């Protein structure tokens, strides 16, 4: 047998990016299940549709870019993006909305920047943010919780955007919507006026807890380090707690902030994106804190009820700067600054 000439190391842990991606997909399942239980089949239909689109577009662009299609297609990153988009979009998203989100994620946010590993922005969040700005009405159609569509109705809505009684009969304001647009009322008054707020909050809590469970699973298998998600949750909780302490009538509590909207989903599935985030562990902490603060500011003072897409894209922009200032101290160095001596 011919002896190979290879560079060390000759051994490998045999860990694989594709396996990592598969774990991420698996970890979304509890959240997917709970979300579908409360909101119906919309997310599932979107998930299948988005996955097919993502794989197709990924293969198409890889082909156009003359890259080995199978090697990159099997890394699973396109599928992860598709899952994240489908989970983030409202269950009432029609086919074209998902198509636009996936198109901008895969083609524009990822491949036009050089493909996996080179994208400065989180692809799923780019697709989401574009839809949020371009189609604000479609992006806020969350189903009312008391009455979910059956599969046939959902299927019809997905393709035709027609539904018995009109869509308004089937949608309801989310907890964050209600708490954001209080029309000068205190939170207690809002709760009294809107009996569905309590239900909405508890549904939101279950969804968030499901994503938290998935996230903890990923932490347990070292899919990522704790730094970014925990820092984000801590800073969001801290800001919310601080304001809630001052004016409990106006500002929702920390636990309400942590367990509504996309908090846990973003903390463990978006903020942890290594490609578009900060590099070092110290940097990840800064990144997470930044996301938490921005989310709180936009949720509380901005015009959007939830804010993860914007907060994360803004922090993606800051990631290179964070990297510059958070380099770890190398072995034997006095400070984190380089003291390289010119030559080797």
């Amino acid at each position, binding site marked *: *047998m*011919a*002896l*190979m*000439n*290879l*560079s*060390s*190391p*000759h*051994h*490998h*842990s*045999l*860990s*694989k*990016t*594709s*396996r*990592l991606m598969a774990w991420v997909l698996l970890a979304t399942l509890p959240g997917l299940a709970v979300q579908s239980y409360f909101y119906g089949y919309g997310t599932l239909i979107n998930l299948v549709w988005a996955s097919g689109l993502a794989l197709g577009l990924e293969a198409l662009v890889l082909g156009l870019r003359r890259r*080995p299609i199978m*090697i*990159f297609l099997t*890394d699973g*990153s396109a599928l992860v993006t598709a899952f994240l988009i489908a989970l983030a979009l409202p269950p009432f998203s029609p086919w074209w909305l998902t198509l636009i989100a996936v198109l901008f994620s895969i083609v524009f946010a990822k491949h036009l920047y050089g*493909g*996996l*590993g*080179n994208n400065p922005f989180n692809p799923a969040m780019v697709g989401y943010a574009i839809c949020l700005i371009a189609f604000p009405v479609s992006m806020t159609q969350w189903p009312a919780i008391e009455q979910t569509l059956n599969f046939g109705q959902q299927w019809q809505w997905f393709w035709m955007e027609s539904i018995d009684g009109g869509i308004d009969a089937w949608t309801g304001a989310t907890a964050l919507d209600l708490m954001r647009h209080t029309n000068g009322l205190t939170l207690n008054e809002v709760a009294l006026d809107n009996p569905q707020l309590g239900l909405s909050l508890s549904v939101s809590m279950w969804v968030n807890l499901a994503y938290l469970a998935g996230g903890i699973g990923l932490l347990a298998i*070292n899919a*990522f*380090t704790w730094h970014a998600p925990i820092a984000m949750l801590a800073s969001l909780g801290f800001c919310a707690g601080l304001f809630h302490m001052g004016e409990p009538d106006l500002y929702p509590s920390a636990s309400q902030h942590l367990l509504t909207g996309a908090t846990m989903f973003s903390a463990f599935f978006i903020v942890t994106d*290594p*490609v578009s*985030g900060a*590099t*070092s*562990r110290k940097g*990840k902490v800064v990144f997470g804190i930044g996301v938490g603060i921005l989310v709180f500011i936009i949720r509380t003072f901005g015009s959007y009820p939830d804010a993860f897409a914007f907060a994360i894209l803004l922090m993606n922009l800051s990631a290179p700067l964070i*990297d510059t200032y958070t*380099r*770890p*101290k*190398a*072995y*034997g*160095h*006095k400070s984190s600054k*380089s*003291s*390289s*001596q*010119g*030559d*080797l």
Partner: protein
Amino acid sequence: MRKIWDFHGGVHPDENKTQSNGLAINVMPTPKQLALPLNQHIGKAAKAIVDIGDYVFKGQLIASAQGVLSANIHAPSSGYIKALAERILPHQSALSGPCIIIDTDGKDEWIELSPVANPDSLTKSDLLNIIQAAGIVGLGGAGFPGSIKLQPKHAINTLVINAAECEPYITADDRLMREYADEIIVGIQLVQQLLDQPKCLIGIEENKPEAIAALATAARQNSNIEVCVIPTKYPSGGEKQLIEILTGNQVPQGGIPANIGIVCQNVGTIKAIFDAVMLGQPLIKRITTVTGKAAANAGNYEVLIGTEVADLLAFAKVDLSQTSRLVLGGPMMGFTIQDTNTPLVKSSNCILAAADLELAPVADHHACIRCGQCEVACPAELLPQQLFWFAKSEEFEKAQDHNLSDCIECGACAWVCPSQIPLVQYYRFAKGRIKALNTEAQQAEVARERFETREQRLSDEKSAKEEKRKTRALAAAAAQEAKRAANPNAEDPIAAALARVNKLKQAQHTTNSPILPEDEYKALKTAAAISRTQLKKTSKALADALAKNHEQASDLQQTLTALTAKAAAAEAQLSAYETKLGLDPEQEKTLQAALAKANGVLRKLEQRLATAADPEQVKEDIIAAKSIQETATHTLAQHQNNPRAKAIPAEES
């Protein structure tokens, strides 16, 4: 119990040590031929001191160290020097280098040895001399000449013995410690004696319980030697990592352990020091692990330095047909060899004959997603993912700025990388390029200096010449000035010349005596020539002054303007006179040239007349040429005379 610290990062690859650590060290019989590379160490190659055909005894010096950073080489067995030839060296590059080839005679006959009976009586320099003479280098891998570390410039308070053997598969040190624990302890005491009795810490991974027990037993009498059991984690056997584990201190960047009062020696080196001092034997053998699925008799072998890989593989019953990768060293930092005739050297601690799929298969690597697992694993606390980007995009300055040079190439990052990127290879590439670029930059710097020195020299020479010329010009000007001062009435030459003409004219008017037109013409010509020369000189001086930004420039500028006017006037007078006379200087020149040519032809013909074979013919030619010359002379004279006659009719009348 001593506190055991931790170092950043590290990985836990499968240990794979049991394949080879179960059996006692097997002494391999002397092979028929040994090939000893002259450079088995870091530093300068040794110089062969034997000739082809010489008989050498086992242990005889055959190549001597060149300078401090070099090491002696001894004959590992008795026999004849067969050749001094190039052989492929045990290195990733598979380059060949000079080797001494010995045909062994099988007698294995030692040269006379002089073991030390009572080492306590030895002075430090005696000890150092013995170690140096024995050709001892670091047996852990780098092959750093051993005596250098043992004469540190700093006070040493801790001697760290590296017995971690953290690389998977390798068990050479493990077996050595189990079987030679007493010798190792004595060796440590010798080194302690050399370093003024520092505390000795033996760092050994917990996965070697037998070796730990053996060392603890051997060292139980000595309170100054402590066996420190450390957790199994790769690369705890890296010198810097082991020091941090045992002392909690980091070796400062760019420094050596001695900077923080530490000397680190590999346990194998200690055994070699024991052999050198207590047995008088130079370093001619070592323990090498042969392992891997292709090795039927995996185990540890005592081999002579210079044994060819093929001989050892045959002795260990390695089935080469099953091997796809032959690694010299461990799977994490070892390098592959393709030629089994490569000799084993002092630092060859393991041959890993891996069967197909035993080691990581060669995989297409995926994109880096900056997952950061490499950063978590890096024992040098670097950002491997960033270094990868910089190496890939050849941004070497950034790579250096991210401390690429602190990378110890342990391979932990590549081992964990889920995208299976050969990170270490990228770092080696970047380091190599940076080294090459630095060399190029240095060479360019030398070239630039040489060029600048040459330019400086040339310009110095030029300005010296200029200076001389200036001095001369100044002297001349001063002389002129002096002359003028001596004769204050002297006017400037142009005016004087013109004045002379006017005077003549006036004289003609008053006395009515004719002025010779030749005189007047000559005077005008002189005036014009003088003015031309002065103009030229002044403009040159002005150009100089302007170039040097001299303050006299404006003065000179005025002078030049005045001179230009004067010169123009002089030229105008001259040409007016010429017109008046009907002189045509251009035609005159043509005529003069024709005459000169005729003269030349005539001269040549006269010369030829002396040697010509046909003098009559030449004579005829001469006559013809003479007539041409006469015509030319005549025409010229006519031309010169004619206008004069026209201009001065008074003369004729």
